[in-house]
């Protein structure tokens, strides 16, 4: 069928093709290098099931926290004029550019046993984040929140502010407008932001291992398990990576069909 807008230009098609190659070739190569006979053994192993379960639960918990805390922040950035808004937006994006290990060190300085918040917390409650599952969730929230907030802010911005104004003229409070107008209009973007945050959280490695260490069933997420396994057994590490790849793609596809409604 002829596209009424004309044929896609070569200048765009060539780079688009190269981009696809760049993304697909390493993954295909990994699939090719995997020793599939190893896979059933890995699937039965206790460390794998513990790590996979921990990864899925901590990422989901982190995504939920990102929604509860991040959506209001995204709304604030998108809808409220105030001094220092540009500064706040910049601060929100900083964790995006931090190397994950640095994020881990930053978290430790704040929430570690001798940290600014961690020390009084330990003295008051006897609880410390490092080496706990709660610490893993905290690290995930820290690295995933910027993605979630930026995506949600973009979605809220593109939903026209005029609708908010119309709701206000009809007597709606800002809270009602937020719930009944802004959020429903931006919903696809908000969900996309959550999926992005979840995916980022699932792959999180550096901050978790620096801040929380690595112990099976408590802080050993899939990326941690893959990393330490690779130290002694490359084939097993590849098989684990494959499990993680399949699970992540499966979840993303399921969400895409169900929620995002994109073909």
């Amino acid at each position: 069928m002829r596209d009424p807008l004309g044929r896609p230009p070569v200048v765009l098609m060539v780079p688009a093709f190269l981009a696809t190659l760049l993304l697909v070739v390493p993954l295909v190569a990994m699939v090719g290098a995997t020793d599939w006979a190893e896979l059933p053994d890995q699937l039965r192993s206790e460390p794998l099931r513990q790590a996979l379960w921990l990864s899925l639960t901590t990422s989901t918990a982190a995504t939920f926290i990102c929604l509860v805390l991040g959506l209001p922040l995204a709304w604030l950035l998108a809808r409220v004029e105030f001094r220092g808004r540009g500064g706040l937006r910049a601060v929100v994006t900083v964790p995006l550019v931090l190397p994950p290990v640095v994020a881990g060190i930053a978290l430790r300085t704040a929430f570690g046993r001798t940290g600014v918040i961690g020390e009084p917390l330990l003295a008051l409650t006897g609880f410390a984040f490092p080496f706990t599952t709660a610490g893993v969730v905290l690290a995930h929230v820290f690295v995933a929140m910027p993605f979630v907030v930026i995506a949600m802010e973009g979605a809220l911005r593109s939903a026209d502010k005029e609708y908010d104004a119309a709701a206000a003229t009809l007597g709606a409070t800002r809270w009602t407008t937020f719930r009944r107008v802004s959020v429903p209009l931006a919903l696809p973007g908000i969900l996309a932001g959550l999926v992005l945050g979840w995916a980022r959280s699932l792959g999180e490695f550096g901050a978790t291992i620096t801040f929380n260490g690595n112990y099976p069933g408590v802080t050993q997420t899939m990326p941690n398990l893959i990393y330490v396994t690779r130290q002694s057994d490359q084939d097993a590490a590849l098989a684990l990576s494959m499990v993680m790849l399949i699970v992540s793609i499966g979840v993303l596809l399921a969400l895409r069909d169900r929620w995002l409604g994109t073909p």
Partner: protein
Amino acid sequence: MQCPRSTLALLVLLLPLAGCGSGDDESGAQGELTVLAASSLTDVYEELATSFEEENDVDVTFSFGSSTDLAEQAADGAPGDVLSTADSTSMQTAEDADVTGEVVDFATNVMVIVTPAGNPAGIESLDDLKGATWVRCADEVPCGKVAQGVLEDNDITAEPASLEEDVRATLDKVVSGEADAGLVYASDAVAAGDDVETIEIAGAEEQLTTYYTTTLEQSEDAELAQKWTDLLTSEEGGAALTEAGFALP
């Protein structure tokens, strides 16, 4: 961005500068020696490099990392003149790929307990680990295997709070005060200086870690590479290693 064209031009002009920034420090050195070495050798190797550079009029560059990683890289033909590992298994990887020359053992290391300065949890021996927040290397990495051996020899069943990916990560958890104690090599304890207190483990020398070094086949200057091995086994090398907390085989 007001004028993307001039920004682009500026970038193009700056690119070659970025290339010049690294590497050449115009020391006028004759050659170059590239050493792939286990991270625990970092401090002592850097110290030895200073005199080596002066004596032989060369630049020494290092790639420090886990022995397993480096041996695999060397086996894959990564450029380098010398490979030094903290265990025999990874050296075997390189030997199997036929990239090694003569393999020499030049140092040993023993496991110790370290605690943060002031020893807040009052750890005095392996027995005190029970109930404390302590860390060691994961079973998959060499230092974890050694730690496991030491704990078994002493019938210790206490569970660590974390199994770290390498010995420096283990040390880091103790130095930062997140862990009450950690099992690391004596040389790491020396490297951490006043940040940690060191407690020797009785019978730890039963689980000795041995360091191996070799010249690599891909070396462009085998004679120079051999000189590094000679330095390690010389009196000067031995003194530097002992100073850094290693023992000699």
